């Protein structure tokens, strides 16, 4: 039950009103900038551990913090940012909710799976709107299935697995083995790990599917060592378990004393609570004060989407989706995202270009791109789909 996003307590629409800072000066009539956070709730599968439930306000809390940031600038600029949250239950009518959202705002954050996103962006009513993917890492959305009206602030999964492999290369841990979970999501993530390993010249010498169908929690120390004994020798053991079912029980239970990486152990995220430098502590503090929990990658994706809108509105003086989109995709756009480099958008598929945090549970290992991985345009483009690899054509005028 704690893994199912609960609908109780979440009104169909929550309108957030935050007081403008006192002392703010209004020089001209306020420019209204309405925004909507539209979420399709997705039932989560049961997992072994009860330790880390998915927060009900995942993503939404990040949008709320960014809204306050935008309102601060807006108060000085005469721009009035507002946010409506619409959360659709798993069996709800997403297109109807999307039409409702588009009647209120043409700037929409989308939280759901890839198919949900496309069901919204392809509505006739969605034509002039600008959407931000804050949840789906699918490659297709940045390639064959890209949409001109959909930008992505959540990193693609490939950018995260590329970042992880850059660290393994830098450490010269080049021989890998992998445990792959049983679900389709596990398989997709494993595939990204394989491709990123190949991209950076690492070899996955052996793989084994996770087949346990019992509650392992009392017997991990007996079962997991023998299970991993069959793998060929390796420097690092990869785990593909993005839904957080079994991966945590692999650490320190391996036959060989080897570090674990992938979905557990050393992992790569758009944001993590262990990021401290580049002023990040301020954002972490603001977020924790607001949401009473650490900031996660999904929260950060929503935060950057709202902040990108804020930055574009501030610089252009417009709330028109087409004008904002043109500005965001131009060389002039740059957003400070507390990761030490300006965040920008890739002009070929609308993906936000951003450093990826490679972390363990207690510390940042590094922010990728790792020094030494060069790129002719921008080192950050060594992560994820580069222009020649993306089959997206919607962004070519």
């Amino acid at each position, binding site marked *: 039950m704690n893994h199912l996003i609960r609908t109780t307590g979440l009104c169909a629409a929550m309108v957030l009103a935050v007081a403008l800072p006192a002392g703010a*000066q209004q020089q001209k009539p306020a420019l209204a900038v309405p925004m909507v956070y539209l979420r399709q709730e997705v039932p989560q599968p049961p997992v072994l551990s009860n330790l880390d439930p998915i927060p009900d306000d995942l993503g939404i809390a990040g949008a709320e913090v960014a809204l306050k940031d935008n309102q*601060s600038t807006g108060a000085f600029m005469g721009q009035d940012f507002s946010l409506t949250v619409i959360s659709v239950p798993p069996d709800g009518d997403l297109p109807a909710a999307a039409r409702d959202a588009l009647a209120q705002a043409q700037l929409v954050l989308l939280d759901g799976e890839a198919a949900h996103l496309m069901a919204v962006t392809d509505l006739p009513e969605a034509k002039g709107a600008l959407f931000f993917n804050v949840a789906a890492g699918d490659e297709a959305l940045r390639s064959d299935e890209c949409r001109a009206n959909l930008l992505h602030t959540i990193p693609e999964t490939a950018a995260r697995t590329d970042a992880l492999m850059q660290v393994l290369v830098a450490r010269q841990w080049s021989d890998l083995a992998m445990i792959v979970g049983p679900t389709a999501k596990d398989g997709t993530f494993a595939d990204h790990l394989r491709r990123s390993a190949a991209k950076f010249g690492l070899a996955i010498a052996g793989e084994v599917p996770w087949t346990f169908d019992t509650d392992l929690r009392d017997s991990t120390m007996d079962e997991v060592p023998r299970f991993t004994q069959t793998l060929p020798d390796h420097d690092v053991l990869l785990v593909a378990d993005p839904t957080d079912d079994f991966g945590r029980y692999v650490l320190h239970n391996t036959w060989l004393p080897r570090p674990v990486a992938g979905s557990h152990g050393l992992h790569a995220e758009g944001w993590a609570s262990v990021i401290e430098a580049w002023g990040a502590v*301020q954002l972490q503090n603001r977020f924790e004060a607001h949401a009473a929990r650490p900031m996660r990658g999904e929260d950060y994706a929503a935060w950057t989407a709202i902040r990108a809108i804020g930055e574009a509105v501030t610089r252009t003086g417009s709330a028109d989706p087409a004008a904002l989109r043109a500005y965001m995709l131009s060389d002039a756009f740059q957003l*400070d995202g507390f990761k030490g480099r*300006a965040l920008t958008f890739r002009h070929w598929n609308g993906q936000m270009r951003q450093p990826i945090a490679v972390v363990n549970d207690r510390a940042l290992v590094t922010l990728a791109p790792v020094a030494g991985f060069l790129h002719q345009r*921008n080192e950050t483009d060594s992560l994820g789909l580069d222009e020649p690899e993306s089959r997206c054509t919607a962004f070519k005028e």
Partner: protein
Amino acid sequence: MRLLLAALLTSVALPAMAGEIWVTNEKDDTVSVIDVETLEVVNTYPTGERPRGVTFSKDFSRLYICASDSNTVQVMDPNTGEILHDLPSGEDPEQFVLAPDDRHLYIANEDDAVTTVVDTQSRTVVAQINVGIEPEGMAVSPDGKVAITTSETTNMAHWIDTATQTLFANTLVDARPRHAEFTADGAALWVSSEIGGTITVFETKGQTEIGKVRFAIQGVNQDLVQPVGFKFSPDGAKAFVALGPANHVAVVNTATYEVEKFILVGRRVWHMAYSPDQSQLFTTNGVSGDVTVIDVASEEPIKSIKVGRFPWGAAMRP
């Protein structure tokens, strides 16, 4: 004999050059005192938590220290290293500037979106002014009439009328403004933007943008060129600009806004202070934990001095 006398005179004259550079070590909760003559650390004093901004009173009898995580501005006796008292500062003071009246401190409260004005004599808060998110850079005009706060997330320079302690203008700059300084004549205001990678120059009268400084270092990725602290040269013809993770200080011609030279310093360079005779410039290098000494005349680095962990602010005492 005459030659010997001349040499003697020179060596006697040397102590006039002496002085100290005081450096806050953000991750050690200390200040390091560097002797300008020997270029060695001669003292290290404990401070409150996370010391960052640092400045002396006009007569150099008091050192003001932003102890950010202690939520206070500490007042230290620089002769003994003793903390005399704390000043009310508002939460999370990061950077401040002492007004020309030698009495009022304008403090940026980073977590609170507020600028706090403190009377250092009565030790009371005179005013709190709402500004943008994450205020940081602080400046005051030479005539004391205008104070500036820059806000890192709101991307603005906020102009404060010090007579009324209210905002009279808010001007946009590039992403993440970190530091602001008025030129010596007060006619222009320079604001550095760390993520934007620029310095924006405003005409003080009218608050209009009159120039932009851009930086490009061969072999350094453009998005790692991040201007933070800077100082004008004694004659005002140049500005020395710390470029953060680019590990260089840029020498900028203040007439043309062109970069004339890049000086290699330590890693993640933050702020700087001149020696008393202004012949040397001391830069704090956060990541390498040292201070680079630059010879101002030749614009060459001449020495690195190890200080504490994450040196940030710097102030000179003759």
